[in-house]
Structures are given as structure tokens and as C-alpha cells.
């Protein structure tokens, strides 16, 4: 799987026997000795954290599925029963619900890391593309899962999101009803959402395998974005990075535990404690926090179809990013001007999230009495900047910016002149 010479020597008769037939222990051993750049910082620990998140969701999810009932009359009740009556359900249900948020938190950091250090550039385009597909399927999984507890937000979120398909010209309505299995979100919808919510995490697990394979084949990027040139530039994955990852996982789990034990509902919405009612829409429909920036982009244009296309484009643009950025320099550390644009980009993403949570017509930034910038206007500016960053700033800066001088090698950068 990894392209470095194998140092594994089977010692015992059974392992020698197995090694000739299925070198699976060798595969694991090679993984552990994989030469990683010696200068990886803590932003590189999120890959390990994400693996942990996926495992947490799968294990807690399978347990929830043993007690959950995917029927419109029983689903809400069954989730309440898990929380109240099932032994340790009070622990496992919030682990899954909070776990989804922690998973997205980690994936966003992981993606911003890739953006900042240019990890999407040659020869790592396949690593980035698999990452984008994983992110897309994660969003689908999160959305499908949020429907399952069958609260008001579950129901109306599902109605709004499946409504996107209804906006497709000509075939929209048939497509939407085909997805729903009825005229509106109802029992057939809940059943299929449950089946797909169960399936997709395993698809993600397979894609993670390909993502890591592509990464080991191309070699890991690093904070200065210069390829390792000699053996001195690298360290074995174990024990150096297993320990670093373990420490980061520990800190991450502290945050995770804080939410599970003290604030299990802080990341959710109170309306989801009201059972789904197709006759009554909540005052204010909002998606989970991790979808808010896209929700703001959706609402930034008054036209239904245009809004959807713009939101799809916001994700699609990530897929073509490796071919938009014209600079050969990977790390923003050596791109002083683009670095500032990057910081503005991160701020724009947060602003979009804020606008997604707000009511478009409300005032976001007041100037004096009931005058000021509305969320709608702010969302439009941030949306424009979001797209400009990918479609204008990155292509143009690569051509006009003069990068800073880069060190000769990773060892030089870490240890200076010392050997």
C-alpha cells in the first residue's frame, strides 16, 4: 500500500506462512514504519481524529439502530426511550448526536489545513478529490441521520432539502416524489432515509481507505510544502506520530466529553424535541450548524433555482480547486499576500455561517436606530467573496505574487544549519 521499502521480517512459523499467502501483517507493519515528514504540526493530527470520529459514529450508530424504530408513529418515541429507558442510552445517544458535530468540526479544520498548506496540489490531487467525495457523503449522512429522530426540525429540514430536487426544471416534481416515495415527507421517506443512513458510513470507510492509499502513494505534504529529499527529512509514523496523534485525540476527547456530559443539546435545536407535525412549520427553520454557510449561500439569491445552483457550485468549486490555483508554491507561509486573502476567506466562511443562522431581513450590523446591514446583504457580500477567492484570487495571485524564499530542505528548515 505504501511505496517505501518494506522492513518487516516475519519471525514465527505461522506469520511466515501467512506472509507468503496474504501479507496482511506486512501491510500493517509498513503502515507503522511509513516515513512521514519530520516537521508535521498539530494540524496534521486531524486525520487520525477523523478516523476516530468515523469509528465512534459507526459503533454508536449500530447500537442505536438496535433500539430505534423507523416508523412515523414510533420514531420520536423510540429515540426518547433510548435516552430514558435503554441501559446507557443516555450516554450512547448523545455520543452519536454530539459525535456528528465533532466529526464536522474536525473535517472543517482538516479541510482548511489542506487549503492553507496547499495539500491539494500536484501530486496530491487524488487525495484531495477523495476528500471532497467523503465530505459530500458525510453531508448526506448527517442530513439523513438528522431526519431519524422525527422532530419538527427533522421533518421540516427534510422537506426543505428534498424540495431542492423539486426545483429541477421539467422533471423536478417527479424526481422529488420518487425520492420521497410519496407526495410529501412521510413513512416511506423515513424508512429509506434510515436504510441509507446506515449504509453511507460504510461507503465513507471504504473511501477513507482510498484517500489514505492515495496519500501514502504521493507522500504526505508538510507545513513548508517542500518534498522530503533525504531520509533525514522523515520520521517513522510509529512511534513519532502515533504519540502526537494520541495526545491530540486526548484533547479532542475532552471537548467531546464536555458536550456529551454537560451540553448534549447545545449543538442541536430545541424544536427537535417537538414531534414532527406536517400541519405546522416551525417559526424559523435552520439546519444543523455545519450546514449554515451553505444555507446562507442558498438564500443569498431571491431565485429558487439560482440559489440551489449557487449552493451546489460552492461545493463543486472544491473539486476543481487543484486546477484553479496556479501557484507552484504549496504552503501559504511563503505566499505573504495570498495568506492574507486566505485569512479573509476563513472569516467569510464564519460570516456565512452567522448569516445562515439569522433571518435574512433582520439587521446584522446596526448603524444607529433600526438601520444597518441586513443578513441578506452581508450574506451576498460573503458569498461573492467565497467564489472570488477560488475563481479569481487563487488563479491570479499564482501568476503575480512573488513568493518568499523557501528553505532548501525540511531538515534545514527545522534545524537550521545544524546537522
Amino acid at each position, binding site marked *: 500500500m505504501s511505496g517505501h521499502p518494506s522492513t518487516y521480517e516475519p519471525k514465527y512459523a505461522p506469520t511466515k506462512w501467512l506472509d507468503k499467502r496474504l501479507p496482511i501483517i506486512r501491510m500493517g507493519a509498513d503502515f507503522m514504519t511509513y516515513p512521514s515528514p519530520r516537521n508535521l504540526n498539530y494540524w496534521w493530527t486531524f486525520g487520525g481524529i477523523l478516523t476516530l470520529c468515523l469509528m465512534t459514529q459507526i459503533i454508536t450508530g449500530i447500537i442505536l439502530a438496535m433500539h430505534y424504530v423507523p416508523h412515523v408513529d414510533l420514531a420520536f418515541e423510540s429515540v426518547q426511550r433510548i435516552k430514558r429507558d435503554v441501559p446507557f442510552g443516555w450516554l450512547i445517544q448523545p455520543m452519536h448526536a454530539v459525535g456528528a458535530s465533532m466529526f464536522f468540526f474536525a473535517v472543517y479544520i482538516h479541510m482548511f489545513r489542506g487549503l492553507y498548506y496547499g495539500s491539494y496540489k500536484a501530486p496530491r490531487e487524488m487525495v484531495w478529490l477523495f476528500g471532497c467525495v467523503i465530505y459530500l457523503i458525510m453531508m448526506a449522512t448527517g442530513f439523513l441521520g438528522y431526519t431519524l429522530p422525527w422532530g419538527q426540525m427533522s421533518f421540516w429540514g427534510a422537506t*426543505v432539502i428534498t424540495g431542492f430536487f423539486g426545483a429541477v426544471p421539467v422533471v423536478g416534481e417527479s424526481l422529488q416524489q420518487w425520492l420521497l416515495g*410519496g*407526495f410529501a415527507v412521510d413513512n416511506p421517506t423515513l424508512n429509506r432515509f434510515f436504510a441509507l443512513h446506515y449504509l453511507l458510513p460504510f461507503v465513507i470507510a471504504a473511501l477513507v481507505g482510498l484517500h489514505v492509499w492515495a496519500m501514502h502513494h504521493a507522500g504526505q505534504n508538510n507545513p513548508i510544502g517542500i518534498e522530503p529529499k533525504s531520509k533525514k527529512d522523515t520520521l517513522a509514523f510509529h512511534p513519532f506520530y502515533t504519540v502526537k496523534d494520541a495526545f491530540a485525540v486526548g484533547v479532542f476527547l475532552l471537548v467531546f466529553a464536555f458536550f456529551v456530559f454537560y451540553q448534549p443539546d447545545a449543538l442541536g435545536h430545541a424544536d427537535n424535541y417537538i414531534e414532527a407535525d406536517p400541519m405546522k*412549520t416551525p417559526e424559523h427553520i435552520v439546519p444543523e450548524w455545519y450546514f449554515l454557510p451553505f444555507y446562507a449561500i442558498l438564500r443569498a439569491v431571491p*431565485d429558487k433555482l439560482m440559489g440551489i445552483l449557487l449552493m451546489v457550485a460552492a461545493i463543486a468549486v472544491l473539486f476543481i480547486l487543484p486546477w484553479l490555483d496556479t501557484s507552484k508554491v504549496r504552503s501559504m507561509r511563503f505566499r505573504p499576500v495570498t495568506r492574507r486573502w486566505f485569512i479573509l476567506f476563513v472569516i467569510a466562511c464564519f460570516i456565512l455561517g452567522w448569516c445562515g443562522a439569522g433571518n435574512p431581513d433582520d439587521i446584522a450590523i446596526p448603524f444607529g436606530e433600526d438601520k444597518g446591514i441586513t443578513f441578506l446583504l452581508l450574506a451576498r457580500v460573503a458569498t461573492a467573496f467565497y467564489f472570488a477567492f477560488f475563481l479569481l484570487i487563487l488563479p491570479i495571485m499564482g501568476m503575480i505574487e512573488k513568493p518568499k524564499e523557501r528553505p532548501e530542505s525540511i531538515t534545514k528548515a527545522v534545524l537550521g544549519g545544524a546537522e
Partner: protein
Amino acid sequence: MSDHTDNSHEHIDEDKRDFIYIATGAAAAVGAGALAWPLVMQMGKAADTLAAGSIEIDLSKISEGQQLKMLWRGKPVFVRHRTPAEISEAESVDIAQLKDPQTDDERLMPTPDGKLDPKYLVMVGVCTHFGCVPVGEQGKVDAQGEYGGWYCPCHGSHYDTSGRIRKGPAPTNLEIPAYTYISDTVIKVG
């Protein structure tokens, strides 16, 4: 086995091979298509979902100014007994200025004697934007929107007293379901 098997007498007919490839490929494609069809179609509406498709509503129970809300095919249906003021407002609009031009009469179904009864407006209570249920309680002005009909709080669509879109992101008027008068006061929706 020798590497020097004499193949010289063997003649390969390229046309025949191409034919076999194409025929095999075509048979496999048809087979895959035939299998995909049921796998795709099972997602559609099931027979029982389609069968549960109609309800009857007694209009005489709704007093003037009131609105009845009933669940039909998983969606709310609004039946509004409109006041004379609401009717005249709906009829007086210049339809040229509408986003989805329709006269009030075009939004009504004929009674058994072939006439239109503008008192009763029957609509699917689902916002044509992203499917929220608009509000429109009698007497609460802010709940009826700027045009006195319905208001969708989700993204701010305003509908008039005929359920036509007047302001906001919704692209079309509130849908009129297929319904018929089965007597002077009872309608059947679906």
C-alpha cells in the same frame, strides 16, 4: 506444450469477432437495464400511498372568514371561506403585474350547476418555495402578510387573498388541488 504451435492454418475472422463482442455487450446492457428498472422504480409511490389519495370536505361547516386545514396526501389543504372584502380584493387585481398571472376565477372549480362559487378557496397549503406551511389566521394582520392572504415565515413569501404569490422568493401561486363538488356543499379532493 511447445511455444511453436503451428497456427498458420488458423484463420481469424475479425468481423465475426466484432459481431460477437457487440452482441454480447448489447445483451449485457439490456440485461443490466432490465434489472436496474425495478431497482429504480421501487422507490416511487407505492399502491397504498396512491390509494390513500382522496378526502371529502363539508364546506357548510366553515363559517365566513374561517379557514379549515386538513391533511391530504401528507400535506395540508386549506379551505378558506372568504369574506366579500377578500373576494373583491382578489378579483380587482390587475393580473398583468403578477409573477404567476392567474385570475381569481381560474383558481376555482365549478359547482354542480356549472358556476363558480368565489366564497370557497381550496388550496394546497404548501409554500411553492421550499414547502413550508404558510400562516394566514383570520384577523391577525401580520400573520396574513402584506396582501391579506397568507404569509410564509420561512423565507418571507407573501400570498394574496387568492393565494397568488405577490412578494418573496416563491416562484408560483399556491397550488390548487384537483377537486370536484360532489354536492352543493361537499367537495372531494383528489
